[in-house]
Structure formats: structure tokens, C-alpha cells
């Protein structure tokens, strides 16, 4: 029985949160990697694009709530999400038209565009602060738990509870649906194929009559929509603060680079690597070990390799290892 309890504790503290966090990262990292493969720069504004989209989702959620519209057991934010996506997509398309297009026409060096994207980051961060402020906003409603720990204990008779929050299940579900749609789109549709062709070889793609502006537009639409979804799920799961999204940049970049910048599959795999590493390194293993080993072996340490404050060190460590050993990433990006 003790092994079962240890397993449940492991599921509860590492697997379930890891799957949820990994899904949220994956949706963000996919956007980063798509922008990289088509527009050929690392988008530092992506974290703040997520914050921007989420801010509008929150505003629409409040509006729905004030009209008495809810989604029953699901968070109302899901109803507001399509509207938020529309605003985010409009924003990134406007940014592209007003800012990035100029540098694309000029064929500016990628690093210049990276600096430009930090300027966009400033603007978006400022807008988010003006729209919704810097304080914490909790916009999660509906049923909190999909699997209630008490129910689980009663049903299995185990000492250790297993809890699955609605938002965690939603994150994983949304990631699966979005990835399936995206991969179907990239592999099967004409537009998706033209996107891949453009990213592989710009000149050849132009020769075969692909309209570059259309490819770029579609990339921004997908990346913006994914950013809004990722940001909303993260905000639902952890509660929303606009400034937090800047610190998501590091794990998202690490995930995209681990998988190989420019490779969508790599971004998804990399996100789960980063998410699980973070949780494995920063969780306290005392409870799990407590079921596996006799107490006199363990002493009174927490068995926590790093405190949760050092989360960023984990994604950074992964990034460093990849840069040292395999800079092109697992799936050989650019």
C-alpha cells in the first residue's frame, strides 16, 4: 500500500501540475517557435502578448459575469476567450503592420528585430498596466476541483489524496486540441504547407508563388491566438498578475530551444521537459520518500533540491546544457 501512496503523492505533486504547467508553456512556446521559423527572430514581446490577451479575457469575463452569464461548472473565462483572442490577434496584426513589416521589407538583421520586439514588449507591458493595473486579479469561477481529494480518498481508501483542479484539466485538454489542430493545419492544409515551405526556404517559396505577407499574417494570427489561450490558462491556474508573464519568457525560450527553435513538435516536447524538470527539482520529496523508506533513514530534511524561488535557474540550466551540447536542439531547429 505504501508504494501506492507514494505513487499517488508523486502524481499529485509532480505529474498533474507538471502536465498542466507544461501544457501552458507549450502553447506559449509554440507561438515563439512559429514566429521564429517564419519571421526569423526571437520574440521578446511574447510574454507580454500573453499578458495583454489575458487582460482582455478578464475584462470580458467581468462583463459576462455582470450580465449573469456563466459557463456552469467551467470558468466563465472560456466564454470570454474567443473575444480575447480576437483582440489579441487584432493587436499583433496591427503591431506587425506598424512595426515589424518595415524591418521585413528592409531585410534588417534579426538582432535588430529582436531589439524592436523589446520595444513592443515595453508598449504592451505599459498598456496592460494601464488597462488592468499591477495588482493580482482572480477571475477563476465555476467548479474548483474536477477530482476532489476527499472523494478520491473515500473511493480508494488511500491515505494520500489526489486532486485535479478544473483549470489543470482544461490546460491539458486545450493543449491537446490546439496541438492537434495546429499539426493538422501544418501538415495537411495548403496554407500550412506554404507556411512550412516559406520557413524552410524563403526564396524557393517566393518562386513558387507563395504570398509572403499572407504567410506572415497567418503566423501572427496563430501565434496571437495561442498566446491568448496560454496566458488565460496560466492566469486561471495561478491567478493573474500582468508582470508575471515577463518571467515566463525564460522557460518558454528554454523550451523552444531545447526542442529546436523553429520546430513545433520540439517546442511541445521541450515545454514538458522544462515543466517536469522545474517540478522535480523544486518539489519537496520528503512526503513521497516517507512512504518508500523507513523514517529513521530520512532525517528531517525536506529533500528539496532548490527552493521554488529558483525556478528560473532550472530552465536556465536546461538552456545552458542544450547550448553547450546540442545548440540545434532535440529536433534540429535552425
Amino acid at each position, binding site marked *: 500500500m505504501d508504494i501506492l501512496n507514494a505513487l499517488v503523492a508523486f502524481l499529485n505533486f509532480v505529474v498533474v501540475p507538471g502536465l498542466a504547467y507544461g501544457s501552458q508553456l507549450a502553447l506559449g512556446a509554440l507561438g515563439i517557435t512559429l514566429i521564429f521559423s517564419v519571421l526569423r527572430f*526571437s520574440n521578446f514581446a511574447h510574454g507580454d502578448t500573453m499578458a495583454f490577451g489575458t487582460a482582455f479575457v478578464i475584462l470580458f469575463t467581468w462583463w459576462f459575469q455582470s450580465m449573469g452569464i456563466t459557463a456552469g461548472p467551467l470558468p466563465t473565462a472560456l466564454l470570454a476567450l474567443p473575444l480575447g483572442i480576437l483582440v489579441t490577434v487584432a493587436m499583433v496584426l496591427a503591431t506587425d503592420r506598424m512595426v515589424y513589416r518595415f524591418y521585413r521589407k528592409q531585410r534588417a538583421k534579426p538582432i535588430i528585430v529582436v531589439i524592436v520586439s523589446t*520595444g513592443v514588449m515595453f508598449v504592451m507591458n505599459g498598456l496592460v*498596466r494601464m488597462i488592468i493595473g*499591477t495588482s493580482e486579479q482572480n477571475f477563476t469561477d465555476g467548479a474548483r476541483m474536477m477530482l476532489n481529494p476527499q472523494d478520491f480518498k473515500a473511493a480508494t481508501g488511500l491515505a494520500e489524496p489526489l486532486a485535479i483542479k478544473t483549470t489543470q484539466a482544461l490546460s491539458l485538454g486545450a493543449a491537446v486540441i490546439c496541438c492537434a489542430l495546429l499539426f493538422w493545419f501544418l501538415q495537411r492544409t495548403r496554407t500550412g504547407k506554404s507556411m512550412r515551405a516559406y520557413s524552410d526556404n524563403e526564396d524557393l517559396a517566393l518562386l513558387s508563388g507563395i504570398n509572403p505577407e499572407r504567410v506572415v499574417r497567418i503566423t501572427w494570427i496563430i501565434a496571437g491566438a495561442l498566446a491568448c489561450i496560454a496566458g488565460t490558462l496560466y492566469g486561471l491556474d495561478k491567478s493573474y498578475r500582468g508582470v508575471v508573464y515577463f518571467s515566463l519568457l525564460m522557460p518558454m525560450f528554454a523550451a523552444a530551444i531545447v526542442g529546436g527553435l523553429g520546430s513545433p513538435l520540439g517546442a511541445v516536447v521541450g515545454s514538458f521537459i522544462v515543466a517536469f524538470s522545474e517540478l522535480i527539482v523544486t518539489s519537496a520529496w520528503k512526503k513521497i520518500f516517507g512512504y518508500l523508506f523507513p523514517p529513521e533513514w530520512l532525517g528531517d530534511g525536506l529533500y528539496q533540491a532548490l527552493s521554488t524561488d529558483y525556478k528560473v535557474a532550472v530552465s536556465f540550466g536546461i538552456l545552458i546544457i542544450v547550448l553547450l551540447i546540442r545548440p540545434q536542439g532535440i529536433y534540429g531547429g535552425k
Partner: protein
Amino acid sequence: MARYRNLWLFAGVALLFILTGALQSWNLSLNILNLALLSAIMAIGVNIQWGYAGLFSTGIVGSVALGGLAVVLVSSKPVPEGWAAGGPRIFGALLFGALAIALAVWLYRKLKPGAARTLALTLFLIVAFFIYRMILDPAVLAVEANNPAQAGNIGGLGLNSLLAWPVGAALAAAAAWVIGKIALGLREDYLAIATLGIAEIIVTVMRNEDWLDRGVKNLIDLPRPWPVPKEIDLQTNPAFLEPVASLGLDPVTASTIMVKLLYATMFGLVLLLLVWGCERALNSPWGRMVRAIRDNEISAAAMGKDVKFRHLQIFIIGSAVVGLAGAMMTSMEGQLTPPSYLPLRFTFLIWVMVIVGGSGNNWGAILGGLLIGWLYLAVEFLGPHLMEVLTSGLPAGALKDHLKDTAAHMRLLTLGVVLLLVLRFAPKGLIPEK
């Protein structure tokens, strides 16, 4: 007219400071001037990296923070009890960690590539990490248990904080060496991403490791650098009071202004020294080589220039200059507040200064530092005034309050817009590279 353009630009910035002094107060003006001078030094450091070599680092805040840490280690009050409780053991642990990493690097180079090497090194590093924690943790607990309300750290050497300035530069240079070794020579974006991470880690360490610098409890009462006296000493010093009285000035105001003037002189001297050195370097064979590498890496490499080594060299020099400014800032403020090291304030603001001023031109970096430094700090008192005027027509209510609150956030938006406009319409900046 065009010949004196640069002079006019600097005169314009000087006018801003004079107007601030005349219309608001000289204390405020000098305060902004000191911070702007420090920003200008940081901008020179960033300009060395970006303007000379085209290296984009997003970790400026890390170098600034390391400079601050140097002041703490060199000149804060010694805490003998704290040091005795675990100081040597902590350093032993850090030494062990460094040795373990060095050994791992050595093994990595010695062993044959393959799964066996990966497995062996992973196991080695995991075991080494746990031994490191076993050495470190008890010592940290012991140090932090010592009088946590006032100390709880290992203390510093208690030396003059002028000595901390070069130490700050050295610390930042060491960090730059490590990160440059890893991230240089790959895609340019990787340096930007890696420096973003290392800066965040440095600031996190300073925020959480109470044994080192008291973390978020802040470290106050750091001594002044030589020759700057304390205001309170000036106010009791007859040699200062007599001339002040004969001029008919208020001794309290006069003493604060005197102190700030001293700082401004010191910072100005350092700035001039740096510019002199930078101008010499830029117009030497070394400077031409560096710009040749920036403009065309391949042909420079074909001429036998070691591109990666030069990039590393420049990255280290630039970071050291920023670290120096970071140490100067902390020694002026007399306290270390880790939560104030925000990337927006110390990384991206400095970038705006360099790009607005004119990347590749030392004078441009200084102009940008002074101008944007003034703007950034002046908005604090101008913004609310402006918003007051703009919203005066509105009826009192939620909208008016909201608009007034947003004034504080206007700063970021403005900076972003300025950066984008300059990059688009005047990418060479106010004083272009010759």
C-alpha cells in the same frame, strides 16, 4: 550650425537640469544628475557591447546588481559572530561547487562521447550537488540565525566603498566570462536569451540568500566612499558652516547639495576617464578591428581575426563598466535593496539610452544616458502635474481617478514608443557614429 550640433544637444540637456533646479529644487536636479551620470556610465558599457561589436545582452541588470553586491561585501560592517558561525564553511561549499563544476568540464573533455559519459557525468553532478548542499545548508542556517533582525549575514570587510568600485567591475566581468564562454559564437539571439536568464538568477540569489546580503530585508548604512562626508558631519563642521553662513544659505540644504555636488564631481571624473579611454580604444587598431568584425564577421575571420575571442573580450569589458556603475550607485545610495533591481529599469532603459543617443558613438551614449535619465526621473514629478492639467476638465469620479493612476504607468509606454520611433526613423540616434 551643423558643426556645433552635438554641442547644442548637450547644451539642451544641460538646460533641462538647470530648469529643474531653478523651477523645482537644486537638490532634486542634482539627484537626477547623479543618477543620470551613472546611467551614462552604464550606457557606455552597453555601447561597448552593442555599438562596437553588435552584441545584444538583456542581462544588464545582473551586472548592476553584482556591482551592488561588491559594495556589500567590501564595505558593509563586519559581523564577526555571523562570520564565525559559518562564513568559512560557506566559502568552502562554494569552492567545492566550483571545483566540482571544473572537474565535470574536465571529465567531459577527457571522456569519449556517448551514453556512458552522459550518464556518468549526470550521476557525478547529482552526487556533487547533494554533497554541496550538505556542506552549505548547516552553515547558512547558522549564519542566518545570528541576530536576524539586524544582521543574519556574514558581513563585509568594512573597507572604504571606493575600493568596492573595481571589485564590482571584476565581479561583473567574471559573470560575463562564464556566460560569454557559453553563449557567444552561437546565434545572436542565444546571447540575448542566456543573459536574460543569468541576470534573473543573479537578482534572485541576491533577493533570497539572506546570509549574503540580507535579501529582501535590505542592507542599510553602507559607508560613503572617500572623500564624501555625511551631511550631519558637515552641519557641525565650522570650516563648512562659516562660508555657508557668509553666503546666507541654509546649512541643511547647503550640506545636502554639497554632498551631491561631490558625488557629481566623482562620477563626472569617472565618466570622463572612461570616455577618454573609449575614444582612444575606438580610434586605435583594436577599435578598427572590432568594428570590422561587427560589420562583416566572415571577412574579418578571413583576415585572421579571432572573432569569438574578440566578442568575449568586448562582452567582458562592457559588463565590467556596467558593474562599476552598479557599485558606484549602491555606494552613493548607501543601501542595497535587491527588489529594486528590475530589468525594465536597468536593462531596457539603458538600451533606450544607447539607441536614442546613437549606438557606436561614446558621446551619443552619454547624451542618451543624461537625456533619458532625466526624462525617466522627471516624469515622476511631471507626469502627475500633466495628468492633473489634462483631466482638469473632467468631472471627479472613477474615470478621472483611473486616468490619474495610469499616469504612473505612462513611463513604460512612452519609453517603448520612443524606442520604436527612434529605431524606425532615426536608427543612428541623436549623435550618429562617425
